[in-house]
């Protein structure tokens, strides 16, 4: 693998890892606050799965850079993170949380399906494993979206409000990283434009059937280097203990 391709691949893996890490952290904020005990447990499970996936992606980055996952997670600053803004927004209400997770799960399952055929073997192998776990996430969140969208007037309104807010952010999942097209040419990652079409084909009719209206505004944030103040707040919370004493043994 030549140097240019490797550099872009590292950025791509980091972006995938950061998406999962930050989303997992946001979901973990519900622990002890879920609407019912079973949902508290379910969301904790989903967060733990996503953390496990992030750990795999960080591990692949480490195989190139030698930088350990903990170092990447606890000692990078806001500007170094490559997650989409979708995952860093404050946790919101239950409708917002479920809808964000649904939009992400639908994207992730499609992405993993394609990445199973990546020409970069470690990535293909990891995706074959993770994909099966993701099936359970999508099932869970799609059940919730149906329940909320078709539930009471209030649950529908809250889910619609979440969709209005989240829809443009979700489109950022399909924005190419600088130089990403070389990875597509090398068949390391799938073409995001085609993936976007697949995603829209699945998500749009599903949301419509749940009595939700697809927003017309779909201009996404453009760069994964740009973040909202929400990420800084999240990181100061997540990294606080690790930064108190760098030498501490866990």
């Amino acid at each position, binding site marked *: 693998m030549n140097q240019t391709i490797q550099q872009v691949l590292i950025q791509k893996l980091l972006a995938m890892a950061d998406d999962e890490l930050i989303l997992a952290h946001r979901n973990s904020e519900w622990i002890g606050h879920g609407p019912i005990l079973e949902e508290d*447990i379910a969301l904790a*499970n989903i967060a733990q799965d*996503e953390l*496990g996936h992030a750990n795999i992606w960080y591990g692949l980055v480490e195989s190139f850079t030698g930088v350990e996952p903990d170092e990447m997670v606890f000692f990078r600053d806001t500007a170094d993170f490559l997650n989409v803004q979708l995952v860093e927004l404050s946790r919101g209400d239950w409708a917002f949380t479920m809808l964000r997770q649904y939009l992400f799960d639908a994207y992730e399952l499609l992405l993993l399906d394609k990445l199973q055929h990546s020409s970069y073997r470690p990535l293909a*192998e990891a995706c074959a494993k993770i994909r099966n776990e993701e*099936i*359970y996430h999508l099932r869970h969140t799609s059940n919730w979206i149906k329940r909320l969208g078709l539930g009471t007037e209030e649950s529908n309104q809250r889910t619609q409000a979440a969709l209005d807010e989240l829809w443009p952010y979700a489109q950022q999942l399909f924005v190419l990283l600088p130089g990403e097209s070389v990875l597509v040419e090398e068949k390391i990652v799938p073409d995001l434009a085609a993936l976007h079409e697949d995603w829209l084909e699945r998500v749009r009719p599903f949301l419509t059937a749940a009595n939700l209206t697809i927003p017309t505004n779909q201009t996404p944030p453009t760069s994964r280097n740009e973040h909202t103040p929400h990420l800084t707040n999240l990181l100061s919370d997540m990294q606080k203990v690790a930064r108190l004493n760098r030498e501490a043994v866990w």
Partner: protein
Amino acid sequence: MDTSTITTEQIWQALAQVKDPEIPVVSVVEMGIVRDVTINGDAVRVTMTPTFSGCPALDVMRRDIETAVRQLGIKNVTVVTVLHPPWSTDWISDEAREKLRQFGLAPPQKHGGDLISVAFLDVAECPRCGSKNTTIKNSFGPTLCRMIYYCHDCQDAFEQFKPL
């Protein structure tokens, strides 16, 4: 023990004593977590694979596997984790399935590689009374590998090992 005469069978036997930390009635061998054991001179290499990739018991299992091999007098032990081929609940031995049931955990349905075909059917047999009159309550449970069902005959909840 003279480590120069140790065989892979002896190592497999030692590993068969290493329990799954979250389900202490089955071993890491019965669960299909240990994939391979090789001896090269005085070096032993054990290949393992995670069940669920975020499983917090993974590090404990890795350590327990290493300890079990060291207890045979072997100093040079490497435990490698691989993700391929992806672990499947189909790899859990029939004997272990029965142990899971006796432990109170309904064994996962076999899916032969087509997970979606069983993941959406939600069929689980109550491990206490054998009833199939059961309903899924939550596809997530107290650990990543369990889901929660309700048995209408026992009128009580039970857990199933999640098919993967």
